[in-house]
């Protein structure tokens, strides 16, 4: 484990690297870093999927990862809570600092990491259990000691789902609509009270209405959580995120405040991608 200074100045070291990581005055967030990826490489067997990306994730902000299909967005995201460990044939290099610890250091239990850094997936994947148990299960296995009913209610409220399900907590989570299921999955993650929530295209399987609800929810959640979201939908990244990183063939092209990326990016590649002129 490496003791690293985790400050707003941290990204300085990247300034020398090619991708331009600009730092501006913060509008939201606390100004601290929640996670700090440092020169991360990921290989699938021999395929080099993520090529030395350094990406500071700011606390209580929404960071969006965008880029063309297959550029490594999901792979990078899954590094942040060691979900890649589940995939066979993956090799990861570099460090990801979380509270001054490298989560890839020897002796770190990925299960413990995932408990602090929750994840929401592309397709809503509630457990085939009751709504109540969907929320309670994660807390239970993590040895939650408080009042479970309260936790379930609180999590569902935070996920803006309580009013819709409070009368049918014992119904199966699968009986909900797609958008509700996704919010249930978010509630489930909130119930283990993580610091960071990773979301891999959380709205792409949903219709526009359900999708905008998730967006609104993300905006609500960033008051308390740090969110990293992968999205195919550039406009979605524009709408919700505070910072945006553009990946291309496993490399970081540009990382900056979202409004800069979308109004005045510094890289031509970003400009082309943003304006829909990706050839």
């Amino acid at each position: 484990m490496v003791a690293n200074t985790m400050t707003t100045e941290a990204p300085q070291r990247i300034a020398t690297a090619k991708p331009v990581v600009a730092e501006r005055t913060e509008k939201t967030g606390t100004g601290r870093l929640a996670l700090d990826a440092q020169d991360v490489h990921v290989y699938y067997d021999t395929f080099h999927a993520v090529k030395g990306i350094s990406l500071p994730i700011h606390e209580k902000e929404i960071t969006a990862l965008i880029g063309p299909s297959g550029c490594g967005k999901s792979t990078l995201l899954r590094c942040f809570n060691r979900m890649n460990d589940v995939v066979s044939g993956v090799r990861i290099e570099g460090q990801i600092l979380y509270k001054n610890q490298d989560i890839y250091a020897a002796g770190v239990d990925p299960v413990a990491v995932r408990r602090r850094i929750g994840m929401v997936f592309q397709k809503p994947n509630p457990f085939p259990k009751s709504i109540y148990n969907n929320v309670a299960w994660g807390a239970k296995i993590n040895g939650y000691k408080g009042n479970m009913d309260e936790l379930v209610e609180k999590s569902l409220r935070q996920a803006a789902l309580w009013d819709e399900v409070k009368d049918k907590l014992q119904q199966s989570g699968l009986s909900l609509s797609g958008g509700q299921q996704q919010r249930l999955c978010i509630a489930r993650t909130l119930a283990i009270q993580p610091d960071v929530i990773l979301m891999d295209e959380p709205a792409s399987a949903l219709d526009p209405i359900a999708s905008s609800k998730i967006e609104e929810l993300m905006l609500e959640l960033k008051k308390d959580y740090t969110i990293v979201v992968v999205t195919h939908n550039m406009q979605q990244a524009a709408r919700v995120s505070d910072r945006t990183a553009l990946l291309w063939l496993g490399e970081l092209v540009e990382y900056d405040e979202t409004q800069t990326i979308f109004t005045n990016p510094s890289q031509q590649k970003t400009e082309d991608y943003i304006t829909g002129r990706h050839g």
Partner: protein
Amino acid sequence: MSQTPQSNTSSDVLPDLSSRASIGESIIAGILFLCGIISILTTISIVVVLVREAYLFFGASEVTLREFFTGTTWQPAIGRFGIWPLINATLMTSFAAMLVSLPLGISAAIYLSEYASERARSIIKPILEILAGIPTVVYGYFALTFMTPLLRNIFGTDTVDIFNTGSAGIVMGFMILPMISSISEDALRAVPDSLRNAAYGLGATKFETAVRVVFPAALSGIMAAFILGLSRAVGETMIVAVAAGAGPRNFDSWGEAFSAEGFNFFKAAETMTGHIARISQGDISYASLDYSSIFSIGLMLFIITLILNIISRSVVNRLREQYE
């Protein structure tokens, strides 16, 4: 790195990320691994058993490998061990079975997957599954008590023996039919609806869609069904044991073996499996040549079915790749 004053005040409490003891998890994994290994042991045992006894068999003074493969008579009592009569019978019953099951099975599969209404399907499918679930000894009974009399009625009692390969083969065909139709139907239904829609969208009729788009797309699955069916026919025991005959149809020469009479479906013959079943009934002595001879036949059987299985699996794998 220098410690800046603002440094990470958020780390109020350093979280414990270290490993929890997970000995339980390892023990479970170990036990499950042992379960997986059992199948390997099974195969090894089969091979060892077959090869060891076959080795004893071929080591015996009465038997030569050459005769085993080139002889046309299997008569242990007089020390004649040419396997051809048994293989010949196996080929005949299997061939008859495939002749029945393949066209019927595939037609039924196409009907069920492409034409039948959901309701009709929901009725017919389970019925076919019943057919598949009937024990083979019952088919044997049926061959003996129904099919043979029927054949004898049609072709005359003189032409058709009480035990004959034809009757066994036909009934075996119906036994395999549900398997072929079910695997083929699965293959046909695995063809995504989007392909059918594509064909309809181009102005194809239902028949053209079924036969020229869906069927070719499912062809490797259907091939696999065919080969699995064949393998099943070759290994099938009880039908032939009951209905095909209780003694090898021996030939004096290869010429006779390949004459029309050699492939007469109305005469009795004993297949490899039938022979094993018959010999192993009763208290045979473990030391006898009879005992080891059936293991040599078993080895042949094992090799044949193994090859068929390997072929079918590679066909199926090709199918899988195609859609992924």
